[in-house]
């Protein structure tokens, strides 16, 4: 089984690119998208298996992005990466049945484990 295609959506480019490098070292095909406008377009082109999504992007709420990704890329799993998770967002996430999240900062091994687990369930 080849390594998964992962798309990182985060406006913090320094973080996103470093994370992408580390995932690439571990054999993942990792792409960085820094703004939401391009997210759907690139997602439809790349067809990533997992999207790592920062819940707080400028100009739009993470929950909205989550719903849009669900709509346009039905097979794609989303893991929320966030430095801040308040209760409303948690409840909203649970309601959208996409409650996978890792709080920043995290251990890369934890993330890799989660990505692989999601991919296995999807396959």
């Amino acid at each position, binding site marked *: 089984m080849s390594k998964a295609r992962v798309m990182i959506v985060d406006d*913090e480019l320094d973080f996103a690119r470093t994370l992408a490098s580390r995932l690439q*070292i571990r054999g993942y095909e990792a792409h960085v998208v820094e703004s939401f406008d391009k997210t759907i377009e690139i997602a439809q082109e790349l067809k990533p298996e997992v999207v790592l999504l920062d819940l707080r992007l400028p100009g739009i709420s993470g929950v909205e992005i989550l719903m849009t990704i669900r709509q346009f890329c039905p097979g794609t799993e989303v893991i929320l990466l966030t*430095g801040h998770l308040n209760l409303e967002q948690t409840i909203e996430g649970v309601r959208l049945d996409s409650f996978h999240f890792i709080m920043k900062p*995290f251990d890369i091994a934890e993330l890799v484990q989660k990505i692989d687990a999601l991919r296995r369930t999807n396959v």
Partner: protein
Amino acid sequence: MNIRRKLLIAFSIYLLLALIPAAFSYRELSAVRKRLKPVEAAGDITNSLLEVRKNERNFLLLKDSDSLQLFRKQISMLKGGIDDIEPDIVKEIGEKNYSLFRAMISRYEELVQKLADNFNAQQKTVASLTELGRSIEHKLPEKEIQTFLVLRRYEKNLIIYRDEASISTFRHTYARIKPSSAAELPIYASVAEKLYSLYDEEKAIDPEIKKTAAEIKTFTDSLLQVEREDIDALLAMSMNLLLLSLIAVIVIGAIINIRLASGIAAPIRQIRKFAEQLAEGDYSQTLDITGAKELSSLAEVLNQMAVRMKDTVSSLELAIKNLHGKQGQLVEAEKLASLGRIAAGVAHEINNPLAIINEKAGLMQDMLELSPHFSQKPDFQALIDGIIGSVTRCRSITHRLLGFSRKMEITIELFNLNDTIRETIDFLKKEIQAKSSHIELNLAEDLPNIKSDKLQVQQVFLNLIKNAVDATPEAGQITVTTTRLDDGLVRVNISDNGPGIPKDVLKHIFEPFFTTKERGKGTGLGLFVTHAILKKLKCNISVQSEVGRGTTFSIDIPVNPPRAEEVAA
């Protein structure tokens, strides 16, 4: 007595004071009026008497029948006037006086009658004298006639002058005449004597009439005088009475007014003083008013009002005190909530750069692992471990802070406290085993299920039991006890036989970022978060510690959930 009755009585007294003199005056005035009638009657009689006297003078002057007739008419009018006097006036004058008066009048009339009779007799006598003279003249001889004519002249003188000189001259002349001359001559002389005696009689009656008339006049005058004096006395008395009653009205009225006014004003002053004391917040006074019924019942109502005011004020004071307490709690809760928000914001802002550091260090490590021939690999590895270790420490702080802010939200559910404690022990299995700690559970079997935020209560137990494990040395003893208290509370005691907490430390243990653990081991947020959660859930936490003996945390949890509005705060 009530004010209304007092005023009525005062008014009645006034009325009486005015009525009594009025009645007296009325009586006096009617007496005066009664007395005026006899005065009028006396006046009438006086007038009538004056008429009589005038006619009397006329008659006495003229001595003719016309004036006599007029005179008599006046007398009868006077008599009629006296007879017409009303019996009550007669009584007023006095029966004795009246009859005396009548007797006087009768006497007067008698005298007048006598005078009239005399007057008639005179006329007849003069006529017969003249007749006799004339017949004697014819019968006398020539030589005697001369002397007789002289006598006749003296006869005329007698009739005109009526005096003693005339009759004596007549007698003297008659004596000179021879008695035999005429048989009728002595008769003539005796008639002349009779005339003279009539004249004499008239002279005697005249002053008597005048005297009687004067007496009558004096009598009526005196009567009139007496009546006038009586009336004067009555009027004076009436005036005095009026003056007296005026003074009485003024003096008694003033006394009554002053007493009445002070009887009403004094209790009102008392009431005013009482009200002022109430206004100043002195509720200890009692108003005691006797007298006017309206005012005493007002005093009663005011006393009741004071009692109620006292109660109300004290309950208000209590309410304000409670409110202050509640306000303090609210402020405290608000402080915690904003602290939570700030903590969350700070944590989030730190987490993002922390993630970058973490990933960069991670990438460095990845790269280090991919370079097997790098000579300083162990040194670099140590450096990277240091960076990642620090990031992990930071992360534990920020995650706690985020957890704290999240813990300010409450989800109520029904759960068994004993089960939750067992679960918590289970979570901490690793740590407990690592230190070979002995956990003793004394859980009350009759413990009711409680309604609260299970996860947060569990977080509290987790913090406290983990602290106990950390605080005790190897193979330390930790005891968890649950007890059902009376008033709807359940108590959980978590005790350890660790070193205990010194007193100066004990008072700071619930403050944020306060820790006694060595650097890097504790965040200083555990007990702060615990305290904040318990406050939010209306639980009470207390701590007892003795250096060298150990520490016990006691938590009282209400069986029923805190009320919604209190939680929302």
